[in-house]
């Protein structure tokens, strides 16, 4: 079938805010799909509630609706836009579930709209566990013994026949939310409870565990003519039992022989054909490591995180091809854009190996339960390419940026063999590092295989790394050894540390013997055909294939794997910088290692280097490309951290010199700077020890905000109210000898500004007012544009201060300044001379592409030449609210109380004509369903009780009643509020936790005991809420915003 000419307009459904299990990969696939549809002459309408995406840029789709991803809004858009088709396969599970909902009620049929790429039956067959099993049985593909259950009794009955361990998988959820492996009845009961709760249809699958089997994935593309190809297969280093999103993955498979490879390929194709998928699809299979027996685990009938990885691993643009297939084209009619000469109907051949390592948020959530299982916990991932496993693995480790530039883990140094084994058995995110260390102290690969079931092939390769470490220590750094080390991925830093010499010594040695990397092309065909695509990786070999062009070029440093505090926003900024450089007629070169993102798409930059953002790796590219300069201010802290090293090596860093970064981050120089400019800031001091800190605290007075200098997203930031808390901060959080910044904590309205300076003038596109008072990390705050409560005077003051700071710093490019406003006085809290998290949001709501403007300013085009007037831009008539989005349900034992340390994983937008409407949409976009009646559990700190009464009265007027423990209940009824008294935790079987677990509570207001104590009641309440999917607000300001949204909804309902 050829292109369906009746489809002239398509609605693409995005995936919404970033949460664990659904991240930047859908911006990448969605953007690629939209561009692909437009190439075919189709008009594209997009709905996505995530403003921090490239796909929502005005030049990507023809029309963008940044609205909540709910059926109601999709219908409204369809009525307004009348598209011919809807494409739901690019927006993850969110889009697919929405399509399913609308298809089931017959909406598409009624409106005569085609569902593209997938049909109702396919979704149901693939996603409903029972139907899927039936289909597999029909086509003769084995599935593990299992049963779909909707209650605990049935689940227990199943276990009687199979025994433990049992895997529990909730139906229709992202990244397996609520699932897990149970090895006894007690665990089983807990997991079933949370799985049923998390499944939108209260159904889950209980399944005999295949833990220890090889976990293999196939990425398939099928078209309407039933042509079917495998883009890539992948092997999880971590056997079945750890979610593939939390597994180290290699591509292609390494331990499968051709017989097995083809057997599983055949099975995958058969499944995709039986589901009649037209587009991309992912099949997960468990293969017995000791026979040819296998079981089908699951199928994703859409593009996924794995397909993004497969696309980056092979170069084959799955989303682009899948979008054209959705329009009726067949693969033989589509050109392979990588070679430009062959067609898309073939199977890529790799002549390298790819290693993906997940990036987990446990640096932020130190108290979280870190054991990896069937529920994904990683926020992001990094990918590395090499020509041997050791090289790719070590490059991936460097790319993680977890302060471990090699397979080192200091925590392991004191462990003996049995302690190490116990630690490895814990199966946490550090397992690979502990394995390396175990090999170092003589644990054998066979012992480790017994313990972990990781294939011996991988373990032998890791052992090879350890053997090389030994050689570094015992031999001279002769050229043969040096060459071997570099070939196996050792960084100069690792070699110098092992050898206990200066890194310069290693660099010198290396250069003496002319040992330097070459760059090879990722071309989908193992060099069989000439390719045009400038997508490269480094390796140590003879021939370099990356030829710098004769044009001037600029290197843009990306932001690496997505983590809390450094998300997709920075990828957006990176892509905008690239576009701006290209608009100026120069070559833009990107260095990044995140396979999920748009910036690492093959056709975004002029040359893409898929490499670690590590000084040595970056310098190698700089030496080859000889760019005019390097831009670091769009790659978050990752890129900023490289500035000093690059400058020291004589590289021109454009826009954010180390001197400026240092002025802002170094407490003393910063104070001096502000004092000279007569700008107020909260009193602050620094301390490097507890004794010092105690003294300085006396000077400043409590409460105090504490944080180490040079951190991302408020990591290890905390408010302390007294000396005890100060003491525990120093013993638990502060690393020894690191500099701790101590600020007087001011309670007031927080606001932030993103501005652009060209060296002479300063342009401020907009100001964001935070809804929560200072003390909650700006990334976790609701924020509104334009400001709603800040006085004209304060606004003017902010503009004035911003202009003064930017000019006097001599900074060129973007700058982000955070303020606190108290009693109409403006204080500066923080200055970041780089693109901030809010840049994409502000770009969207002010219609000013901040990163582009900044890049052009950096490259010498003044603001006035860009047609911009200095000062604050006239605000837009719309009110836009940015809502933070959290992934707490996926992170066990994490405290959900908000504070100065960032915890959110994503953001969503609500935009409308006034604040209340915008708030209502923002909550809904963020996945909070704005209930209009129900029960609120109120658990307040004493200091908040009085302040809260008027708020609760408003909730009551909307239709809520209350639940509280004795003291609070009394207070509430005194004020005439309908309240039911509930027992405190542990005082009765029907205590407040049981009320939450029974689903009797619709909303929780909780401001008590924000300490880090896991035993505290506050913590238990918050966790029960997260585990049961109940909304829990820990700030009265958020509650105040929510009540406004509820009032809006009630009002609307009355209309």
């Amino acid at each position, binding site marked *: 079938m050829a292109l369906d000419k009746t489809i002239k307009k398509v609605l693409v459904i995005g995936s919404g805010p970033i949460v664990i299990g659904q991240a930047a990969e859908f911006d990448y696939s969605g953007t690629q799909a939209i561009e692909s549809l437009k190439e075919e002459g189709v008009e594209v309408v997009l709905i996505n509630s995530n403003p921090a995406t490239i796909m929502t840029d005005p030049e990507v789709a023809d029309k963008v609706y940044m609205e909540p991803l709910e059926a109601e809004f999709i219908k409204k858009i369809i009525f307004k836009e009348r598209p011919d088709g809807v494409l739901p396969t690019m927006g993850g599970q969110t889009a697919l579930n929405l399509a399913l909902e609308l298809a089931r009620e017959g909406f598409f049929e009624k409106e005569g709209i085609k569902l593209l790429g997938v049909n109702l039956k396919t979704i149901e067959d693939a996603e409903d566990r029972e139907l899927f099993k039936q289909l597999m049985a029909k086509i003769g593909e084995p599935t593990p013994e299992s049963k779909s259950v909707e209650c605990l009794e049935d689940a227990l009955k199943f276990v009687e026949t199979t025994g433990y361990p049992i895997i529990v998988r909730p139906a229709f959820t992202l990244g397996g939310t609520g699932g897990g492996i149970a090895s006894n009845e007690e665990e089983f009961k807990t997991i079933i409870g949370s799985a049923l709760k998390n499944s939108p249809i209260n159904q889950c699958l209980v399944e005999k565990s295949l833990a220890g089997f090889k976990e293999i994935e196939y990425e398939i593309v099928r078209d309407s003519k039933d042509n079917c190809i495998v883009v890539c297969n992948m092997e999880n280093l971590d056997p079945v039992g750890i979610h593939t999103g939390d597994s180290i993955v290699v591509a*292609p498979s390494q331990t499968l022989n051709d017989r097995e490879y*083809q057997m599983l390929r055949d099975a995958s194709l058969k499944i995709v054909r039986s589901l009649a998928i037209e587009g991309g699809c992912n099949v997960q299979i468990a293969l017995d490591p000791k026979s040819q027996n296998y079981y089908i685990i699951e199928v994703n009938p859409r593009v996924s995180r794995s397909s993004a990885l497969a696309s980056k691993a092979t170069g084959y643009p799955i989303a682009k091809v899948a979008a054209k297939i959705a329009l009726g084209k067949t693969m033989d009619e589509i050109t392979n854009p990588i070679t430009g000469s062959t067609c898309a109907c*073939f*199977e890529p*051949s790799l002549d390298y190996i790819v290693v993906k390592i997940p990036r987990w948020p446990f640096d932020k959530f130190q108290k979280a339960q870190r054991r990896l299982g069937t529920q994904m916990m990683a926020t992001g991932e990094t990918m590395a390419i090499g020509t041997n496993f050791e090289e790719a693995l070590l490059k991936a480790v460097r790319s993680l940026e977890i302060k471990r530039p090699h397979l080192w883990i200091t925590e392991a140094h004191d462990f003996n063999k049995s302690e190490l084994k116990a630690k490895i058995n814990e199966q946490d995110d550090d397992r690979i590092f502990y394995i390396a260390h175990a090999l170092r102290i003589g644990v054998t690969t066979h012992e480790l295989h017994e313990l972990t079931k990781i294939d011996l092939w991988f373990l032998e390769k890791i052992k090879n790394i350890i053997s090389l470490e030994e050689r570094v220590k015992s031999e001279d750094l002769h050229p043969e050894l040096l060459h071997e080390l570099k070939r196996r991925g050792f960084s100069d830093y690792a070699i110098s540390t092992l050898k206990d010499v200066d890194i310069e010594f290693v660099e010198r040695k290396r250069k003496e013997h002319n040992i330097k990397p070459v760059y090879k092309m990722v071309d989908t065909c*193992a060099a069989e055909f000439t390719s045009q695509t400038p997508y490269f990786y480094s390796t140590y070999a*003879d*021939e370099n294939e990356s030829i710098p062009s004769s044009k001037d070029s600029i290197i843009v440093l990306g932001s690496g794997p997505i983590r809390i505090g450094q998300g997709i926003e920075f990828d957006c900024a990176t892509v905008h910088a690239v576009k701006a450089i290209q608009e100026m007629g120069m070559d833009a070169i990107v260095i990044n290692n995140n396979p999920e993102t748009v910036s690492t798409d093959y056709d975004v930059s002029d040359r893409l280097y898929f490499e670690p953002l590590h000084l040595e790796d970056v310098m190698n590219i700089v030496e080859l490309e000889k760019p005019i300069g390097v831009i670091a201010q769009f790659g978050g802290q990752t890129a900023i951290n490289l500035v000093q090293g690059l400058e020291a090596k004589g590289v021109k860093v454009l826009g954010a010199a180390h001197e400026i970064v240092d002025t802002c981050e170094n407490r003393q120089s910063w104070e001096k700077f502000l004092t000279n400019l007569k700008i107020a800031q909260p009193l602050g001091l620094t301390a490097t020890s507890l004794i010092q800190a105690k003294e300085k605290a006396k000077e400043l007075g409590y409460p105090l905000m504490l944080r180490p200098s040079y951190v991302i997203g408020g990591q290890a930031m905390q408010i302390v109210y007294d000396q005890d808390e100060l003491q525990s901060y120093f013993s638990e959080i502060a690393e020894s000898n690191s500099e701790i910044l101590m600020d007087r904590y001011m309670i007031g309205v927080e606001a932030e500004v993103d501005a652009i300076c060209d060296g002479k003038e300063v342009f401020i596109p907009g100001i964001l007012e935070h809804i929560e008072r200072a003390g909650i990390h700006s990334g976790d705050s609701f924020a509104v544009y334009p400001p709603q409560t800040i006085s004209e005077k304060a606004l003017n003051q902010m503009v004035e201060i911003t202009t003064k700071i930017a000019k006097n710093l001599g900074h060129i490019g973007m700058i982000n300044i955070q303020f606190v406003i108290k009693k109409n006085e403006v204080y500066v809290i923080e200055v970041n001379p780089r693109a901030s998290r809010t840049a994409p949001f502000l770009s969207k709501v002010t219609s000013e592409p901040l990163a582009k403007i900044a890049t052009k300013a950096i490259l010498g085009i003044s603001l006035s030449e860009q047609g911009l007037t200095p000062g604050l831009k006239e605000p837009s008539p719309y009110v836009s609210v940015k809502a933070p989005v959290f992934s707490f349900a996926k992170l066990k034992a994490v405290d959900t109380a908000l504070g100065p340390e960032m915890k959110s994983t994503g953001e969503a937008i609500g935009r409308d004509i006034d604040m209340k409407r915008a708030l209502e949409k923002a909550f809904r976009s963020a996945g909070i369903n704005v209930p209009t009646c129900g029960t609120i559990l109120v658990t307040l700190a004493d200091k908040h009780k009085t302040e809260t009464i008027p708020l609760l009265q408003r909730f009551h007027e909307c239709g809520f009643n209350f639940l509280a423990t004795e003291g609070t209940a009394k207070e509430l009824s005194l004020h005439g509020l309908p309240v039911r008294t509930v027992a405190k935790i542990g005082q009765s079987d029907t205590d407040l936790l049981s009320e939450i677990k029974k689903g009797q509570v619709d909303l929780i207001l909780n401001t008590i005991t924000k300490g880090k104590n896991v035993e505290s009641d506050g913590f238990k309440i918050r966790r029960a809420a997260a585990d049961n999917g109940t909304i829990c607000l820990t700030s009265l300001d958020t509650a105040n915003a929510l009540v406004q949204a509820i009032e809006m909804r009630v009002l609307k309902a009355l209309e």
Partner: protein
Amino acid sequence: MKLMLENGEIFHGKNFGAKIKEQTLLSELVFNTAMTGYQEVITDPSYCDQSIVMTYPMIGNYGISNDDYESLVPSCKAVVAKEFCETPSHWNSGSSIKDFFLSHNIPALMGVDTRKIVRILREQGSMKAVFAEDNVSDTVLADALKEQLATNQIRRVSIKSPTHFPNRGAKRIVLLDFGYKKNILNLLIEKEMDVIVVPWNTTIEEINNYKPDGVVLSNGPGDPKDLHEVVPTVRQMQELYPMFSICMGHQVFALANSCDTHKLKFGHRGVNHPVKDLASGKVFITSQNHSYSVDPNSVEGTQLEISQVSLNDNTVEGLKHKQYPAFSVQYHPEASPGPSDTMFLFDNFIHTVKGA
């Protein structure tokens, strides 16, 4: 160990396999892009006298298995890869690839920039190459490159006398052996055919004596034009029996019907080659290994028609006789290594055999 290409380029690496017996080892150098199936590739008789560069950089990961020989004695000259694995891991691995190379006297060059070699072969075409240990001077290598390559490989790899694989009560297939891959035979047996494998130069009379119900022409090494004496036999066979020809067989089938063949610049070797069936419009992913190809212009006006073409370069991938139940494919429907997308061709053939 080092490698000198016909264009003068020299590569230095390590010999992971058997020592080179003579001072130098001359062969044609070709590359294969398969990511799995190295054992099947190395033991494929179609590589007779050639040396194979594997584009996949890590070869030997799952060892060598007794189940995956395409011929018991590999006939390629040498293997080149970025790295061979010393510590294989697989339940079905009987030995390591190192032992395999040593026991079959195959030198194996590792540690060279294989992608660079492939790019040279891609741009300049398959070429002669000579291997030698490091102590041999470059002039000796250059001299060796002046030697002619051997021809008529099929005489060496084909079975010496007919072998019968009885299968009671089934239809009988004669497999004309130009260097058949084991899986062709396995599939025929699996599908309950009674198979007699006969030498490449078996006469039509001898074949008739076996009273076959169908004939299969196998794959094999070298230039199809070396097989001019087989051409008349094939011409007669197609009139008498359903005939299914694979790879070399396909080329001989073409020659027997007055078509012409020519050598490709660097051939097709891999397991990811898309082939389009012209009648159905469907595309199959195929396993390929050939240096020569049927000239499409030469098919015009003959009794053959082109049934399938390569989507990569439009070369002829399938032929069909207009009158007789005879068809052929340039690729390997028996896979091994590679995808099984076209294995149904065996069923199609057997269906014809049973109907005949």
